Every structure is written in C-alpha cells, then in structure tokens.
C-alpha cells in the first residue's frame, strides 16, 4: 500500500507583488484598506459616545487624547480614510447602477475621487491642526 504523495501547493495566479501598480488596482486596494481603518475608527467613535454618557472623567481621557499630537494624527488619518472611502463608495454605487465602466470614465472618476479626498482631507486637517 503506497501512501499518497504529499500534496504540493496548488498553482496560484500572479498576485499583487507581480503586477505593476495601476490606478484601478491601487484605488481598489485603498477602498478596502480605508474601510478596515474606518471600522476601527467607528469603534473609537462609539467609545467616544459611551465615554460622554459615562461622565466628565471618562470623557476627559478621550478629549485629552484628541488634543495630543497622536490624537491629531489619528483624526487626520481617519478623515483621509473617510473622505476617500466616501468618494470611492459613491463611485461603486455608480458602477452598481451600470455607469462608468468605460476605461476613460474609470480613470476620470478615479481622478475625481483622489482630488476630492485630498482636498477634503486638507481642509479638515487644517482645522484639526489649528492652522486656520
């Protein structure tokens, strides 16, 4: 009785590390990444609400952290993730409606998403860091 040969790893199709980054693939990955970041941020927002209900001491910790440099870095990061995910999400809704699949449209909407996310994040970041 022969023992079955150990299964060798199944062949994989070329993966992320093989392909040259393109706008289509990079924006798709960013959408997923920003979604995961926002899930963590959402938990923190819920924590903020719970702390506010709990009392001034609990809220003081959260409020104090927001004022620190790290707090501002976190807020700026969440703002970037939010505005990107918002714009890219609207782009997904347009695709769901059947619009925007032509390659020039894909690149045009992708550029709009990036420009919107950058501008909105910049405005919020200026406010967070108190420059204006």
């Amino acid at each position, binding site marked *: 009785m022969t023992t079955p040969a150990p299964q060798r790893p199944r062949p994989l199709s070329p993966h992320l590390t093989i392909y040259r980054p393109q706008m289509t693939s990079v924006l798709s990955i960013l959408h997923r990444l920003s*979604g995961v970041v926002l*899930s963590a941020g959402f938990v923190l927002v*819920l924590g903020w*609400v*719970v702390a506010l209900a709990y009392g001034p001491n609990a809220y003081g910790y959260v409020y104090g952290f927001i004022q620190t440099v790290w707090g501002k870095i976190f807020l700026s990061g969440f703002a970037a993730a939010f*505005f990107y995910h*918002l714009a890219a999400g609207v782009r997904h*809704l347009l695709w769901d409606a059947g619009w925007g699949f032509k390659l020039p449209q894909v690149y045009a909407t992708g550029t709009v998403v990036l420009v919107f996310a950058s501008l909105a994040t910049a405005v*919020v970041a200026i*406010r967070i860091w108190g420059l204006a």
Partner: protein
Amino acid sequence: MNQNEGLKSDLARVRGLGSAKSGTGHWVGMHYTSLALVPLGVWFAFSMFICIGTADYAAARAWFQSPINSALMILFILVGAHHAVSGLQVVVEDYIHAPFCKHAKIIGTRFLFAALAVLATLSVLKIFLGL
C-alpha cells in the same frame, strides 16, 4: 457519493450546481447601507468638523440634547455597524481560509459590533434624556 468524487478537483465538484444562493442578500445590504451612509456620514463628519477642538464635556452633551442630532446619531451607529460588519466579513472571507478561524472571526466581529452598537445607542439615549 460517487466513487470518483475524491479524484475530482474542487472546480469539477461544484460546476453545474449554480450559485451559493446567498450572495444577493449581502450585496443588497451593502448597497442600502452605503446609500444611507452617504448623507449620514457627511452629516456626522460635518458635525465633528464643527466640534473639533471645541467639544468639551458640556458642549458635547448639549449637542446630543437636540432630538435631530440624537436620532441621526443612532441611525449612524446602527447603519454604520451593519456596513462595517458586512465589509469586514468580505475581508475575512478573502484572506482567511481555515474554516474555524474564518467563522470565529466573522462571528466575533458580529458580536463585538452588535454589543458596541447597542451600548452606544443606549449612551445616546442616556445623554438625550439628560440622565
């Protein structure tokens, strides 16, 4: 079961069986929650934008005294939790293949977000009612 079943590839085994019949619900859920989160998210971001740096304890409590703010916040919590859980589920399904690990993470995420969403909703109500 067919004797040759063990020799078949995974693809050959499922070919012709049709879809899993469970994807549409997930898609519709993501679709509706993302539609709702466009205005809710913009409202929330704009509110926080106004509050940033000035929302001390009293100001933040006062903000929740408005029934509109409290109602929209509860909507944002519930819809946002549903959207986050559905999105994270796809990420887990894509990258984690061990069945136990996969289901443990999906169920764990669901329980965590459900518990947090209920806790946060009760917190909004508590502040709104001035308790």
